[in-house]
């Protein structure tokens, strides 16, 4: 079997997991307004670190974010046996190409190598860069590699920054919302970007959660538009449920993708409806952190693991009235509930989808 041993995050809400979730529980969001300036010629909303996160000497800002998220996990559970570092990011140190050059830090392999050496991992790290599903797909990859006995432990760390590069790109796509994002809401009008890092230790031996099932199936439909039928997400969830041996309604909640674009949220509603998951509590955590790209799947997994551990469902911040065509049980209020099984899903550019189901053991 494959287990979650430990997890942590580093976000604009807090320097570690506890600080982040304590503030999230009070309904606080990291999203703020930024004026037109050097990153974007128009005002925008984003979740960014307030302090200029001081990089460790010799490391970039993103590498320091990765280190901040992973350090407590490595400290509490040092690598033993055959251990792998798996890094998830969509854009790595993309700021390094400003001016048109390709310095060594622009390459993700050496970037991950620096983080691996910092912690003393001897194996070459793997970097997963698979658009917005990267963070949760990395958990699926870690689960398979430990389950198959190829590695005893996989330390998964994910991070992405809010940069001029991604802000201008999402803006060019007309995908940025006019205010803080409102997942699944009638008045949603686009994404809010965010930056964060998160870490999870997956082990073959023992842990506090079991990774019970996963699926990752492409839409085979369009490179930037979600499938109208939610086909890839539907198939991904079906596979995850079958492997976990669960019926959909046995899930206690779903931490969905919920970017607050018109098409993504509608696609998810269609896929969940096709699976009969209309009454399972669902949230998107983008209202607290924005869309943290390659970190989002892992960050939202970490928050959901803590949600299950504390026995509290967190509301979908920004949601007021349904704006999707199928009924969903979007969480409006903080609610105490015994949680045994939950599912994390994500979808992204390139037609990628991933679903992973977790079971609480203790």
């Amino acid at each position, binding site marked *: 079997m494959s287990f979650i041993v430990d997890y942590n995050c580093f976000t604009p809400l807090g320097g570690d997991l506890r600080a982040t979730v304590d503030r999230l529980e009070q309904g606080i969001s990291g999203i703020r307004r930024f004026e037109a300036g050097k990153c974007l010629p128009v005002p925008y909303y984003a979740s960014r670190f307030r302090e200029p996160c001081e990089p460790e000497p010799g490391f970039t800002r993103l590498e320091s974010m990765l280190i901040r998220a992973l350090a407590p996990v490595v400290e509490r559970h040092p690598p033993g046996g055959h251990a792998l570092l798996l890094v998830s990011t969509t854009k790595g140190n993309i700021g390094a190409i400003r*001016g048109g050059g*390709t310095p060594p830090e622009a*390459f993700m392999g050496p970037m991950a190598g620096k983080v691996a050496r910092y912690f003393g991992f001897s194996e*070459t790290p793997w970097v*997963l860069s*698979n658009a917005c599903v990267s963070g949760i797909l990395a958990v699926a990859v870690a689960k398979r590699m430990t389950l198959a006995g190829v590695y005893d432990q996989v330390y998964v760390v994910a991070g992405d920054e809010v940069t001029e*590069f991604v802000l*201008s790109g999402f803006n060019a796509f007309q995908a940025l919302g006019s205010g803080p994002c409102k997942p699944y809401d009638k008045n949603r009008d686009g994404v809010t970007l965010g930056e964060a890092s998160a870490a999870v230790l997956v082990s073959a031996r023992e842990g506090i959660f079991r990774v019970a099932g996963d699926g990752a199936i492409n839409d085979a439909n369009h490179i930037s538009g979600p499938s109208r039928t939610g086909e890839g997400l539907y198939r991904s969830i079906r596979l995850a449920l079958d492997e976990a041996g669960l019926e959909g309604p046995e899930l206690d909640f779903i931490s969905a993708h919920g970017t607050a674009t018109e098409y993504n949220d509608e696609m998810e509603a269609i896929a969940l409806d096709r699976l009969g998951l209309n009454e399972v509590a669902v949230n998107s955590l983008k209202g607290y952190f924005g869309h943290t790209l390659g970190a989002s799947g892992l960050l939202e997994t970490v928050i959901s693991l803590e949600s299950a551990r504390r026995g509290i469902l967190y509301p979908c911040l920004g949601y007021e009235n349904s704006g999707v065509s199928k009924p969903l049980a979007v969480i409006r209020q903080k609610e105490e509930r015994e949680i045994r099984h939950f599912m994390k899903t994500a979808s992204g550019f390139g037609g990628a989808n991933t679903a992973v189901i977790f079971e609480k053991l203790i």
Partner: protein
Amino acid sequence: MKEALYIGDRCEIRNGEIRVNGETVFSAEGELFADFAKKAYRYLEMDYPKFFKMDKLSKLAFLAASRLLSEGSDTALVFANRAASLDTDLVYEASIADKEAYYPSPAVFVYTLPNICLGEISIKYKLYSENTFFVFEKFPSDFFPAYANTLIRTGKAEDVLCGWVEMLHEEYHALVYRAGRVGTWEHTEENLKKMI
């Protein structure tokens, strides 16, 4: 005992040449990649106009994969490279670098993710299967067998199309091959090292 898995058909593209299972099937010398890709497309008689909208990394991956795939299979795609999407990242970066000539394009931005090339292949061949894109400093002859064999042995895929697709500053190299239950050479690190 673990089931043995094999390296099947392979396609390699570099230096203006397409080789399938070691035999040159197409070559065009001294061309820029864009010209080479256009000629290769015509030679392969693909009739797929979307090809011309793709970025260079996607064209490279698409050309190499097209010799090894048929429609509607459940072949998983596990690709990797060194430069991720840097070749197109630089094109996009140039479009936002100068505030006096600011023209960010969504059609370019979408290709600033390396896995988009897998989406392109999946769309063409209707692959409702897993796509995963990894980044390494060099061809990871240990990674491909470790990951692809696990996908097959754990039932996540019937077979896997493994691909190394590197594209940066006109330097390109694609080595794409099938991994599965059919083939002569076992899908191991040692055999991959001999192949590259």
